[in-house]
C-alpha cells in the first residue's frame, strides 16, 4: 500500500490538482498518524484507569482502518454551524463526565 500512497492522494485530490497540495496533504496525513500513535502510547502509559486505556486502543484501531484520515478530518471541520454545535454539546458533556466522574 505504501508505494501507491502518492496515487491515492493524487486521485483523492483531483479538484485541488497542484503538486504542492498533495505534498502538504501527505505531511498532514503523516502528522495525523503520528499524533494518533503517540497519543495512544501517551494515554496507555499515563492513564491509571483501564477505561481510558481501552478507549484509546479502540479509537486507534478505528481510525487506522480509514487510513487517508486527513480528508475525513477536513470534512469534519467545515464551517457549518450544526457540526460545531454537535461538537460543543459533546465537549460540554465530556467535560462534565470527566470532572464529575473523575476518570
Amino acid at each position: 500500500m505504501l508505494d501507491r500512497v502518492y496515487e491515492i492522494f493524487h486521485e483523492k485530490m483531483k479538484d485541488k490538482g497542484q503538486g504542492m497540495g498533495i505534498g502538504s496533504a501527505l505531511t498532514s496525513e503523516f502528522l495525523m498518524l503520528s499524533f494518533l500513535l503517540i497519543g495512544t502510547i501517551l494515554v496507555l502509559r499515563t492513564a491509571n484507569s483501564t477505561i481510558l486505556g481501552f478507549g484509546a486502543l479502540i479509537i486507534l484501531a478505528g481510525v487506522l482502518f480509514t487510513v487517508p484520515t486527513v480528508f475525513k478530518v477536513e470534512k469534519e471541520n467545515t464551517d457549518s454551524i450544526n457540526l460545531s454545535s454537535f461538537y460543543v454539546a459533546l465537549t460540554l458533556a465530556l467535560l462534565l463526565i470527566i470532572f464529575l466522574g473523575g476518570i
Partner: protein
Amino acid sequence: MLNNSTLIPLMVVLPLIMAILVNFLHQKDKSVKFISIVSLIVFVFIPVVTLYGVHLFSGHLRTGSFPEVSKILIPEVYMGIVYSYGAVQKILMVVLTILTGFSVLAVINKKMISGVYMAMIFISLAASSAIILADDIFNFFVFTEILVVAQAALVIAVQEAKSFKAAFKYMIFGTISGASILLGIALLLGSYGLLNITDLSHAIQAGGALTPIGLVAVALLTLGWLYESGLFPFHIIKSNIYENARPEISALLQVQSKFVLVAMALILFRVFSGYALLKSVILGFAIFTVVIGSVMALQQVELRKLLSFVAVSQAGLVAVGFGLGTPFGIAAGIFHAINDVLSMAILFFIASFVYDKFKTTKLDELGEGLQVVPLVGFVMLLATLAISGVPPFNSYQSEWRLIQASAQAGVPELGILVILLSVATFVAIIKAFYMIFMKPGSKVEVNKEVRGNLTKAIIVILILACLLIGLFPNMVYDPIYNFVVSLGV
C-alpha cells in the same frame, strides 16, 4: 494624583474614554486620525512606565473578616475589585499595546478611518487589557463578554456574507461560553462567598478537596476557557474570525485571543491549583487543537484561511505549555505566546499587503511576487523560519523550552509532537511562500499605486523584534519564570 496605583486602571479606562470620544467624532476623519495616533502613543507609554503593584478599586487594604457574619475560611478578605500588575502582566500589556498600535496605523494608512471602527478597536484593547490585569473573577467575566461583542463588531465591519456568518457563529457560541463562565462563577460564589481570585485560591486550598459543586464549576470554567482561547470545539469559529476580518485586524484579534488564553489559564491554575485532572484535560484539548489546526492548515488553498489555522494551532501549543502544569511548562507556554504573537502578526500584515497589492489571496492565482516585492518576500521567508522555531528566531527558544518542560514533566512524547508540529507549520507556510512569491505564471495583475511602505516598515520592525528576543531570550523569559514560580502554581 498620578502615583503608580492610579496608572494601573488607566490602562483600561483610557482606551474606553478614547473609544467613546472617537465614536462621537465619527464623521470627522481628520480628528479621529489625530486622536487615535496620540492615544496610541499614550497607550504604549503607560504599561512601560507603570511599576509592579496592585490597585484596589475600593480603596481599602485587606480588612479583618467578620466572624459572626461570614463563615469565610480565610482570615482576611479583599473588599471590592482588585487589579494586580506583575511581570507577566507588564510584558503582555507592552506587546499588546505595541501590536494594537501597529494595526491601528495600518488601518489609518489604508484610509479606512471610521470613528466606529476605531472605537471598536479601542474597546477590544480596553477589554483585553482588563482581562490581563483583573484579579476579580466577575470583572474578568464582564470584560470577556465585551471582548466577544467588540471582536464580532470588527468582523462585521467587513460587510461580506461570510463575515456576517462568522460573527453570528462567534456570538452564538459566545453566549454559551459566557453563560457557562458565569454559572461557574455563581457556583464558586455560592460555595465560597468570594469573587477575588487570590482569596478564592486561598479559600479553596484551605477548604480541602473540591466538592461536586466545585467540580461542576471547574468543568464550566474550562469550557469557557476553551471558547476564549479557540481550542478544540471552537477552533473552527475562531479561525473563521481570523479569516474573515481584515488581515491587519486579525493580527490584532489573534494577539488578544492568545493573551486572554494566558490570562484565563493563569486564573484557572491559581483558583484550582491543586487539581491534577484539570491539567490533563487542558493538555488533551490543547494537543488535539494543535494537530487539528495544523492538519487543516496544510489543506488550505487560500492564504488568510491557512494563516488563521496556523494561528489556532499555535494557540494550542501555548495551551500545551499550561497543560504540563509545572512552573517551567507554564513559563515556556507564556513565553511561546509572546513569541508566536509577534511572528503571526508579521504573517498577517504580509497577508494584508498581498491582499491589497494583488487583490486576491487565493494561492493558485498568485505567483511571481518576488520580482514585484522582494523585501516582503524576504521578510515572509524570515517569518516562516521564525514561526516554525528555527534557531536564530524567538519561537525556537520557546519551543525548545516547551520540549524540555514536557520531558521534565514526564511526558516526552509531547516533545516529539511539538517537533512534528513545527515541521508541519513550516511546510504549510513555505508552501504559501512558494505559491505567492516564487511560482511562475501568476494570473493576477499588480495594483501599481499600492506601495505599502508602512506595512513594510512594520514587518521589518517585528522581524527584528523576533530576532532580538531570539538572541536574548532571558530578558523576556526570566521575569516570566520568576512570576510563575512566585504564583506557586
